[in-house]
């Protein structure tokens, strides 16, 4: 019997060791008292990005910071929460976050589930191409090209259904994967909102490699998502956004985050109220 017990003990030790590591990580959950939880993207340079030192950077992040400040929350009182595209409505509906600033276009379908403050930014679906490639000048050129986009995104559906049904569209899990293909000439263009593309193009690793084609293939109004019916919060955020535009912060932020790519942004949109 003695011989039997050792392996069992060893296995138990393995399992215990694993659990110990697991417990060590701890978990800090959302909104307690004087803090505010805000949903942003973690993986979009220029808009919302978790940087290597654990802080967050981007236009959306700075907008969120400004709004939170106007609502009475200093920067260190913000809990950042990852809001992947498919999860945004759920996060808002369940009250996991107070508001979402995550390249969140206002559209009919989403308005059924959440309310939007803003818009605070207008952009268009565009193409990112290699810097030396000028073969795409109009939407029709796309039909003979290889495109890449993120699977399930509205940009991908747009291409398939409206813009260029004959284009060879590759759908991958993330923009970085598309960029690898673009860099290696496997695809000719990466398509999504110009603001997102500008974020990638302005990264220092990519400067000079890619450029925006400058086609406006759709209108995307970025809004700040809040719980349906919470008109008080919506009003406050709208006021904050108006102030941000009038005191010049908006211009400064746009220049800071989209400037290096040469992206020509639209002027600040009128708040819908």
């Amino acid at each position, binding site marked *: 019997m003695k*011989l*039997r017990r*050792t*392996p*069992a003990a*060893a*296995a138990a030790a*393995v*399992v215990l060791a*694993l*659990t110990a*590591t*697991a417990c*060590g*990580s701890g*978990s800090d*959950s*959302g909104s307690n008292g004087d803090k505010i939880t805000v949903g942003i993207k*973690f*993986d*979009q*340079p220029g808009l919302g*990005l*978790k*940087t*290597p*030192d*654990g802080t967050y950077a981007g236009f959306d992040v700075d907008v969120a910071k400004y709004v939170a400040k106007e609502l009475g929350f200093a920067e260190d009182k913000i809990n950042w*929460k*990852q809001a*992947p595209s*498919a*999860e945004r409505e*759920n*996060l808002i509906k*369940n009250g*996991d976050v107070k508001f979402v600033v995550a390249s969140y276009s206002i559209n009919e379908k989403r308005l059924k589930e959440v309310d939007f403050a803003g818009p605070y930014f207008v952009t268009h679906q565009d193409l990112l191409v290699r810097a030396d490639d000028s073969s795409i000048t109009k939407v029709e050129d796309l039909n003979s090209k290889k495109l890449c986009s993120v699977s399930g995104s509205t940009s991908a559906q747009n291409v398939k259904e409206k813009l260029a049904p004959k284009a060879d569209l590759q759908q991958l*899990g*993330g*923009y*970085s*994967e598309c*960029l*690898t293909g673009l*860099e*290696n000439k496997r695809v000719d263009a990466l398509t999504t909102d110009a603001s997102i593309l500008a974020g*990638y193009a302005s*990264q*220092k*690793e*990519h400067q000079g490699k890619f450029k925006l084609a400058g086609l406006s293939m759709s209108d995307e109004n970025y809004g700040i998502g809040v719980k349906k019916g919470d008109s008080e919060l919506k009003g406050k955020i709208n006021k904050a956004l108006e102030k941000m535009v009038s005191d010049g912060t908006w211009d400064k932020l746009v220049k800071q985050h989209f400037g290096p790519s040469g992206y020509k942004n639209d002027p600040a949109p009128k708040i819908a109220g």
Partner: protein
Amino acid sequence: MSSVLYDTPGPRARRRNVLFTIVFLAVLALVAWWVLAALNDKNQLAADKWSPFVTDSRVWTTYLLPGLTETLKAAALSILIALPLGALLGIGRLSDHRWVRVPVGAVVEFFRAIPVLLLMMFAAALYREFTTVSSDFRPLYAVVTGLVLYNASVIAEVVKAGVLSLPRGQGDAAEALGMRKGQTMTYILLPQAVTVMLPALVSQLVVIVKDTALGGALLGYAELLSQNRQITANYGANTIATFTVIALIYIIINAIVTHLAGRLERRLRRGRKSAAVAIPAQGGPTDVKSDAVSGA
């Protein structure tokens, strides 16, 4: 066994083996050279794509290590819940009562037939629609639920096979001593079966560690693999480098687990020789193990 398959090489065979070695090496080298050349051609070997993993410790502390922690957390929780549940289901499948054996068998077969990914997706939707679990934990719950349902069924099969691999005499002798069925199971059969099953159970851990990666791609669980999005977004789309590093981490973790499983197995085999119980050479461990190996 391998040495039984061919004669000890004589001079001619040895020359032939050397020739094979050279040809094989040449082919391998050619493929490797071609791949590296192509990667280099596309600037994928450029230093700035790889150097962050060596020079910038923040890649590890901000992305990879927290991701690894999440992976191990989900794996540990899953195995801890799946083990007792699987043991119960396994014993249930061996029950003398039809009304226990048949439904348990149906449950086990059902969950073994459905892809873990679908189980996870279903669990995620279930938690989202019908519970108030905070979104901080929802992906973890979904991943663990999927893994537990699937792996408990696999473990149930392992337990069943382990108990059945014991010589009939063990159960008969216990009965002859007047033990009740529950006693026979807990004092006689399970302790012996555990030693037969352990290697299979540990290899199941490898399967679980790997399957946590499914939770990242489609459920948004912040495990190791899903960190590639944030890393590549920060370091200029260095996808090849990032995936290579992440794959290496999985391989190392699983190699450690597999190594432990191997040591355990060897120790057991040594133990068995000296023990009075002879487990049939063919049925037992090989079958049990192959059962679990395929469960990826």
